[in-house]
């Protein structure tokens, strides 16, 4: 990817600095001159949105931690103290609790985009796996964060999820007691969850740096799935990608603000406004919406150990996607069959999400079992076989040819 200007320091100080620590040059080559495929569509803007959400969560979270008390007798009251007596505490707290949901909305779109356009394929396997690690860390962080207000759903969610580790043969009970720091979910559990909830986002930020580094080594995928071949196929990151990302980020903030200011408790559970009570089990223990598909898979399997294995497997299997998909063609745009199976997969995940919110009985369990079979079948059977049998559509010769089939770039195609 030659032909893009490198950083030329303009003043004496920057020249002096550049010879000692070329940080300005790094920023310039990564976020200004960096060539991005010119045909990226709006689904490619969610990486920027995710970086923004991580920053927003860390900043609001640090402020919340200044006012929060991680103790079983005080946690619920300290959160209500934030809501009532801290200046704009209600805003910070609602930004943080709804921010978690927005973070997951963005990450699900980001993952689905990667799957649709084959962004995990050679040479982007490591980039993809780093993304799966970020997602796993997000899930752990989100779960522990939901425990902190110490309401009924916090407490019982913690009980259910930590008990899953009890399914491990032989050492299960010891592992659970070790996680709890005692013989039940209690104050030591809350303390360590707070500690981990505070530190994991910085671990996420570290993996994000690796993720972006890997991205800048292999370059971005694009809707055609073919590599840029000349300068005609790319545009500079700034101003083209920056302005496009900025526009979508503000649109995304509109959605975020809608929840924060107008329906701040919509994505939560009413039961979490009841202080945790180990003596009273809620009628339905339901995790946050972003875990529901996996919760449905867990409950679809009658054996506890196998259920937990399927739950873990349903996420870990994403890391093997680059090798499970045997097709040489990246983008679903040229894979008519894959496209059908992909949308069935999306529908399956949504269906599992709905079933995860319903009581595990009757028709719901049967439906969850069928969808679980498709969930795994998509990865283990469909993807390996599809690469061998699918008749793909012809690929364009270059990115610019896919945009301007007539040949010479028309000056005003469309905005």
């Amino acid at each position, binding site marked *: 990817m030659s032909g893009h200007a490198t950083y030329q320091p303009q003043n004496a100080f920057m020249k002096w600095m550049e010879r000692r620590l070329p940080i300005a040059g790094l920023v310039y080559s990564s976020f200004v001159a960096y060539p991005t495929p*010119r045909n990226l569509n709006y689904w490619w803007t969610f990486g920027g949105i995710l970086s923004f959400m991580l920053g927003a969560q860390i900043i609001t979270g640090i402020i919340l931690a200044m006012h929060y008390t991680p103790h079983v007798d005080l946690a619920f009251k300290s959160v209500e103290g934030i809501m009532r007596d801290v200046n704009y505490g209600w805003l910070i707290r609602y930004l943080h609790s709804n921010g978690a949901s927005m973070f997951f909305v963005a990450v699900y779109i980001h993952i689905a985009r990667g799957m649709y356009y084959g962004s995990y394929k050679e040479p982007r396997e490591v980039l993809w796996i780093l993304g799966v690690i970020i997602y796993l860390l997000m899930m752990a962080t989100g779960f522990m964060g939901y425990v902190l207000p110490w309401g009924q759903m916090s407490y019982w969610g913690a009980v259910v999820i930590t008990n899953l580790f009890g399914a491990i043969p032989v050492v299960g009970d010891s592992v659970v007691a070790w996680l709890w720091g005692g013989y039940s979910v209690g104050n030591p559990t809350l303390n360590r969850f707070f500690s981990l909830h505070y530190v994991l986002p910085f671990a996420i930020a570290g993996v994000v740096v690796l993720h972006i580094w890997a991205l800048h080594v292999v370059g971005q995928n694009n809707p055609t799935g073919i590599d840029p071949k000349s300068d005609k196929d790319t545009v500079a990151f700034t101003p083209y990608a920056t302005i496009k990302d900025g526009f979508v980020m503000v649109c995304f903030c509109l959605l975020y603000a809608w929840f924060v200011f107008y329906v701040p408790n919509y994505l939560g559970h009413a039961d979490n406004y009841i202080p945790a009570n180990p003596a009273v089990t809620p009628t339905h223990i339901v995790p946050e919406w972003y875990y529901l598909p996996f919760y449905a898979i867990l409950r679809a399997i009658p054996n506890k150990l196998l259920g937990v294995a399927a739950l873990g497997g349903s996420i870990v299997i994403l890391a093997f996607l680059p090798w499970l998909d045997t097709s040489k063609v990246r983008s679903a745009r040229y894979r008519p069959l894959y496209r059908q199976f992909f949308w069935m997969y999306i529908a399956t995940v949504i269906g599992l999400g709905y079933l995860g919110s319903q009581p595990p009985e009757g028709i719901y369990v049967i439906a969850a079992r069928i969808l679980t079979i498709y969930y795994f079948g998509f990865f283990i059977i469909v993807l390996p076989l599809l690469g061998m049998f699918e008749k793909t559509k012809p690929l364009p010769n270059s990115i610019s040819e896919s945009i301007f089939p007539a040949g010479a770039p028309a000056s005003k195609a469309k905005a």
Partner: protein
Amino acid sequence: MIKRTALSFAVAFVLGAALAAPVMAAEGTPHPPRNKWSFAGPFGTFDRAQLQRGFKVYREVCSVCHSIELLTFRNLSEPGGPGYSAAQAATVAAEFKIPDIDDSGQPTERPGRPADAFPKPFANDAQARNTHGAVPPDMSVLAKARTYERGFPWFLLDMVTQFQEHGPDYIVALMHGYKEKPADFQLPEAAYYNEYFPGHVIKMKAPLTDGQVTYDDGSPATVDQYSKDIAAFLVWAAEPHMEQRKRIGLQVMLFLIVLSGLLYFTKKKVWSAVH
């Protein structure tokens, strides 16, 4: 293609997001009827007179059994609430006895101050359970802690219409829900039948009767009026900064709409060079 993709993602998001809708056992429990609330919607504000009436109902009826420990007397005079003056809030506070420790270290009681929280009716849960057979729940965030299942597709539409008054609607319904039990219904000792209570068996005796509380503003002294006023009061108690939240929300939304418009046209201009 793009349109279909966008639609699929919209559906995926809407479904996914909405599945977090709170759940309550609904077998055989009718949905609480919808009420008209002044605080509903993006421009909603509390009706000051209603909050004052609701406070009177809390004080004269509910507070006998239910604590509201997160609420302080000063809250009564803060903006966005029942609209009492600071002096009125101090007067109310002084009418309550607050347990304290005197200079010699002995337990004592003193008149309340604005900074005090509302005192609890019972020293502890055991005492409450011994008196009533159950611990009456604290009322501070009760309006946010109670809900009912709306069912498909309403729970999705609620996200757009901003309907979130499940809690106060339920509280009003509960006050109206004391009925004769069906002939075949097994009711335990010292419990009452309530149509809207999950499972129908409630330990709380019907708390309100017509004429029980005398209003100063001429509002009807009926169970219906009392229940609406107390529900509104509890919504404010659970979310005392709601008015500020919705006001700032409007400013934020307008700012973001203008900014997104400007960015859209900037983007269009920038990209016109390569399209």
